[in-house]
């Protein structure tokens, strides 16, 4: 390891430890506030109990089983919503009239809280996995439509003028210019959609389900088993982190042509 990469490594480790500090402080304060107070332990649990619940649930395979179901629902909704939304949003580039007609409907659907939609979706699609996928799909679709349409309409004029001068056909402009230049916006939609897809799946499980992290959390909270509730929340956070990291990797690949930002 040369000096430069060694110092970079030290810096990365240093940053990581710095990022951990607030978390460690929080755990310490939590433990301190609940250690000798059984009443508080009943409401807030303790870091140690949460840790034990995490270990127990992991060893029994229950946490993994519920997490896999939530991930499957969220990822299916995310992929369907983002890809279909991107296709629809980019297609609006072909017709401003269609975009103008669709805009108020998209804004309206986008502003309805997913909690309000959940009972309708569950009635339509049942209490199985399909309704959770639909609840993850809905907000991600709306965000992807809005973002990708915005991207399609933000193509730089100099590129459009150049394509016009060289006699490119409309479909060629769409394929070679509009789609690739909107990728930045689609990636932004993906980043926003990770959280929305997880929320949709979770809300579905929360309202009516027999599996998934939402179900695990609701069931545990009904029994005042706060340690399991926290274990479920931690698992959800870990899934969000992993999915965000995956989208970051995809972004690095799709936008590899971008100049590195100054640090």
């Amino acid at each position: 390891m040369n000096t430069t990469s060694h110092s970079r490594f030290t810096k990365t480790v240093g940053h990581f430890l710095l990022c951990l500090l607030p978390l460690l402080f929080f755990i310490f304060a939590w433990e301190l506030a609940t250690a000798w107070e059984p009443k508080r332990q009943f409401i807030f649990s303790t870091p140690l109990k949460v840790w034990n619940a995490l270990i127990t649930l992991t060893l029994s395979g229950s946490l993994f089983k519920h997490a896999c179901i939530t991930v499957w629902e969220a990822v299916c909704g995310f992929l369907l919503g983002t890809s279909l939304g991107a296709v629809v949003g980019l297609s609006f580039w072909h017709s401003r009239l269609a975009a103008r007609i669709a805009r108020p409907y998209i804004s309206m659907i986008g502003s309805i809280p997913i909690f309000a939609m959940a009972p309708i979706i569950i009635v339509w699609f049942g209490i199985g996995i399909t309704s959770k996928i639909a609840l993850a799909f809905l907000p991600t679709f709306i965000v992807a439509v809005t973002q990708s349409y915005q991207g399609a309409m933000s193509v730089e004029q100099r590129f459009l003028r150049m394509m016009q001068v060289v006699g490119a056909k409309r479909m060629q402009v769409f394929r070679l210019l509009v789609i690739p230049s909107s990728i930045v916006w689609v990636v932004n939609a993906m980043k926003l959609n990770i959280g929305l897809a997880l929320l949709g799946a979770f809300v579905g499980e929360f309202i009516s389900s027999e599996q998934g992290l939402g179900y695990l959390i609701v069931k545990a909270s009904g029994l005042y088993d706060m340690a399991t509730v926290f274990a479920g929340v931690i698992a959800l956070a870990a899934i969000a982190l992993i999915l965000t990291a995956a989208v970051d990797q995809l972004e690095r690949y799709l936008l590899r042509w971008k100049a590195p930002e100054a640090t």
Partner: protein
Amino acid sequence: MTPVVSEDQGKGDLPVLEVSALDFSYSAGLTKTPVVQGLSLKIFPSEIVTILGASGCGKTTLLNLIAGLIAPIQGSIKVTANSGERGRIGYIFQQDALFPWRTVRDNILLALHLDPSRKKDVSESRMNTYLETFHLPQSVLAKYPSQLSGGMRQRVSIIQSLMFEPELLLLDEPFSALDFYTKLRLEAEFYQLIKREKRAAILVTHDIDEAIALSDRVLIMDRSGNFTENFSINLGSSRDPEQARGAPEFSSYYQKIWKELKAVIQE
């Protein structure tokens, strides 16, 4: 107004560009602002014509009209190839129009991607020739535009335009953002290429030095959107734009052009 032509042109070749009685106005509500009025112009193969004028006098609008980006209110614009068919146009802007998500190679081969009837090996061989002409190494092909210097980007941009085999090149201040040394090199490469390949070019610039060093003719545009003066520049046909700046006649051209340009700017 009679078409602006140089004294020694129009004898053998057909004009690449023929603009007749061109009118164009910008409309804002009911108000119309005339930008180009009754303008006529002829340009022949191998000719480099520079347009000078005050900011906002309509130089870029004229290029946009010729490129077909905007339609004239009146008049005609004819771009003709040697074969008599409709000629092609290349447009190089001050800020290049290289797609940032495509490698240099894919940017240069855009003509091939837009027109599959072009032969891949012919296009690649032309690309390699132009890379040599503009002193760009092969290694540049795998890079993205964001990894290139300003001078390299502008070279790639010119090559990209040339790959469409345009009879007429329109250049809107293409060298203005470059440092002086890069500008001189690029001007020389560009000048030699235009003369060798017998293409024609219209250059819009604010730099009188550049106009004299590169051009066969310098046209001064006034605020009414017409040409007031047509200077033929005779500094020898095998000249280099860098050497041209040291020619004895250079300062005399400069004085004449500056006097006319000053009058137009102060109008």
